[in-house]
């Protein structure tokens, strides 16, 4: 029944048509001849790997970005949408992954923010609540208009966002990963509302990575890859394998990397039954000395959370961590560091570097106690010597060790953080998105560095959202989805195998789930 509107596409005038859309950012071609179509009463899934251009395309539609070329048609008529405000007036609303509600206001106040009904210049709170109640009723949503948003669950907050969109009489609703924070019951509730909106002719763009949801709720699927349109297929009839191969598509031209046999090496780090709320569910794995274990998965799969929990940066609910065959209690980063574990955060500026301090002090930051003489005075000469050693060893490009860290390029900042951990004698290194924000040339240098570190016997975990990076570096590949480790593959696995594990959600846990939904 849910797929029955596909044939509607053949007759009605499309609600939205986007044709040959180009969009470039400095140095990056985000969209190239992208296209998309949405029919009234249709749920249209938009899929693709991280960075495929889904969000960019929808930001063009909702007026956040101007397009460089191409045309946008609403109801068959060409339109120019140059701001989110104009998009809203045209009936296009976007519900972001991070909800944009004011937590201290009521649901009604949020929905009508900036256009509150007034009487004699004074806010008319009663009218406000009446209007809101009417919208909630039309959604069949059991919610008080006067409830404070901060007391609502994420799912209910999302409903308020949808109500807000409806209050603008939106006919196009763009939902970016709407189920990321929802449990099964809440997802069912969301889908009930989506079906009701469908029946009223609202078109819904559904951005998601989750195959089972796509199969369950959407009518058609458009796949994007590298900013380009790949194809549109009916959701119900198309096998998951076909959609995945559309998403992965390109053949990689990375040289096949040699995978050393590390099976004889001692295990450096072992994680058993790690749990943290809904983010990490029963994750177990191990890394050997000299091994590079890649962590693949889509955004929000829980890979960073696992790294931070191991490192003690976040609290964990349960789980054991063993370092060199010895069980260790890690409750704070300093515990992890004292066991020789170093963590290189995905956001260096926020978590990795003291950007206002110089290179020397950043390299020494984790080892200052070692550079303190018995009188309590810092051995500045020793720090300088160590810093210069690592600047040479890792070929960090900096005019001197007293250069402020923020003035270095991304790749060299990353090397400074690596130097910090090497100086601290860390032999288990966790790299979270090691090449994010680093240009192509510097990337291969970082890859070489990681391979060298592994060859020296360091145990290395690399979290990356770029499959080519995972495939190029990893000796083994752990894949996560929705907080679960869905499988560990050999380093020469194919992209299809990885994507399959990265999108399998609970289907892997309950083999019958897929059949039941279909």
């Amino acid at each position, binding site marked *: 029944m849910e797929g029955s509107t596909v044939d509607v596409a053949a007759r009605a005038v499309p609600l939205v048509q986007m044709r040959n859309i180009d969009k470039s950012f400095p140095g990056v071609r985000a969209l190239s001849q992208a296209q998309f179509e949405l029919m009234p009463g249709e749920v249209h899934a938009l899929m693709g790997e991280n960075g495929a251009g889904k969000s960019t395309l929808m930001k063009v539609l909702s007026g956040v970005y101007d397009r460089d070329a191409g045309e946008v048609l609403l109801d068959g008529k060409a339109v120019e949408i140059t701001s989110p405000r104009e998009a809203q007036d045209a009936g296009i609303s976007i519900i972001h992954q991070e909800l944009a509600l004011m937590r201290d206001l009521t649901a009604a106040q949020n929905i009508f923010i900036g256009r509150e009904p007034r009487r004699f210049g004074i806010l008319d709170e009663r009218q406000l609540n009446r209007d809101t109640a009417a919208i909630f009723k039309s959604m069949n949503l059991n919610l008080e208009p006067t409830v404070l948003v901060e007391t609502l669950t994420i799912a209910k907050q999302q409903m308020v966002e949808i109500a807000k969109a409806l209050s603008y009489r939106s006919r196009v609703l763009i939902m970016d990963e709407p189920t990321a924070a929802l449990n099964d019951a809440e997802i069912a509730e969301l889908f009930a509302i989506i079906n009701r909106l469908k029946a009223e002719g609202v078109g819904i763009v559904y951005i998601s990575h989750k195959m089972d949801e796509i199969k369950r709720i959407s009518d058609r699927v458009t796949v994007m890859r590298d900013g380009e349109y790949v194809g549109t297929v009916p959701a119900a009839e198309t096998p998951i394998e076909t959609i995945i191969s559309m998403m992965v598509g390109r053949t990689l031209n990375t040289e096949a990397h040699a995978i050393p046999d590390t099976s004889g090496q001692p295990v450096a780090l072992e994680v058993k039954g790690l749990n943290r709320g809904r983010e990490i569910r029963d994750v177990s794995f191990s890394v050997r000395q000299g091994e590079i274990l890649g962590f693949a998965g889509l955004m929000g799969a829980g890979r960073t959370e696992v790294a931070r929990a191991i490192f003690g940066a976040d609290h964990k609910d349960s789980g054991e961590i063993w370092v060199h065959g010895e069980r260790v209690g890690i409750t704070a980063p300093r515990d992890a560091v004292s066991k020789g574990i170093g963590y290189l955060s995905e956001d260096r500026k926020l978590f990795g570097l003291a950007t206002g301090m110089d290179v020397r002090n950043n390299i020494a930051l984790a080892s*200052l106690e070692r550079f*303190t003489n018995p009188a309590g005075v810092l051995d500045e000469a020793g720090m300088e010597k160590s810093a210069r050693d690592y600047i040479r060893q890792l070929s960090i490009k900096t005019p001197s060790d007293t250069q402020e860290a923020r003035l270095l390029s991304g790749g060299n900042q990353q090397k400074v953080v690596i130097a910090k951990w090497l100086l*601290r004698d860390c032999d288990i290194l966790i790299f979270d998105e090691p090449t994010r924000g680093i240009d192509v040339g510097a990337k291969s240098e970082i890859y070489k560095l990681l391979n060298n570190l592994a060859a020296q016997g360091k145990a290395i975990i690399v979290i990356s959202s770029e499959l080519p990076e995972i495939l190029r570096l990893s000796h083994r590949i752990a894949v996560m989805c929705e907080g679960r480790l869905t499988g560990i593959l050999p380093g020469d696995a194919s992209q299809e195998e990885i994507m399959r594990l990265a999108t399998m959600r609970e289907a892997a846990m309950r083999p019958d789930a897929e059949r039941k939904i279909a």
Partner: protein
Amino acid sequence: MTETAAPAQKSGIRMTGAFHRLLAFSGLIALVVVFSLASPNFMQTQNILAILQATAVNGVLAIAVTLVIITGGIDLSVGTLMTFCAVIAGVFLTYWGLPMPIGILGAILAGAASGLISGTVVAKLKVPPFIATLGMMLILKGLSLVISGTRPIYFNDTPGFNQIALGSVVGQIIPAVPVPNGVMILFLVALLTAFILGKTALGRYTFALGSNEEAVRLSGVNVDRWKIGVYALSGAIVGVGGVLIASRLNSAQPALGQGYELEAIAAVVIGGTSLSGGRGTVLGTLIGALIISVLANGLRILSVAQEWQTVVTGTIIILAVYADILRRRKL
């Protein structure tokens, strides 16, 4: 190539630091020039010494606050803590009749203990520094009044106590420059603090905490311990300030203190220390404290009403920070 580029960069960094101090320093020089032209009384030795003497207490408090501000925090309790430490000295010396060194030590330890508490509340209980030290400010004010029975405690039974601030060891050696001991103590505290900030792990972490606390934590550093250490050190320095003010007044005045913290913070800010943390110097703070004293003294000599002095000081604070913002925008 790397080697040849290094010296240029080094001097570049030094220059921005020097310019930074230069800005406050040239402001101080300008004030001195203006006031000496306006009044012949200003440059008298007696007047200069009076200015320095007036700077001693505020300077010590400002140096204490500088430490906390560099970590990205703030300390509103230094004024009433100073009084509390003075009262403790009074209890030790006048009430209990203990020897003078014990009284001085007691005051300094009381300051350190209070800093330890503030630091613990900030680091462990995660109470924002503004709130934690606002609470401490009121607690200490109340305790000072309770302990002293709201009456001043005089140090008449401790001969030589008032010489701690008012006497002049320098003057005994070189009679031409009778620099009061209080001023020498200020300089000693400044030197010691500058040394700790520049040469020890505690100092390095003080800057690192203000620069990026999360990065420091993720480097495996025991952030809480160091932070508490900074607050405790700051409190001990305030203890020195407490001894100074008690000595100068030859009494512990329990109702005194509130308002001193704002003057101290003003000195820190005028001296170019960033309220957002990570940046600051003891020398800058010293100059900032001197600017405030020179301003107050000069305006008084010119017979400007006291009411107007605070207006001028307030304006100077805003101008000083604005000048700093302009300078940073250019970088």
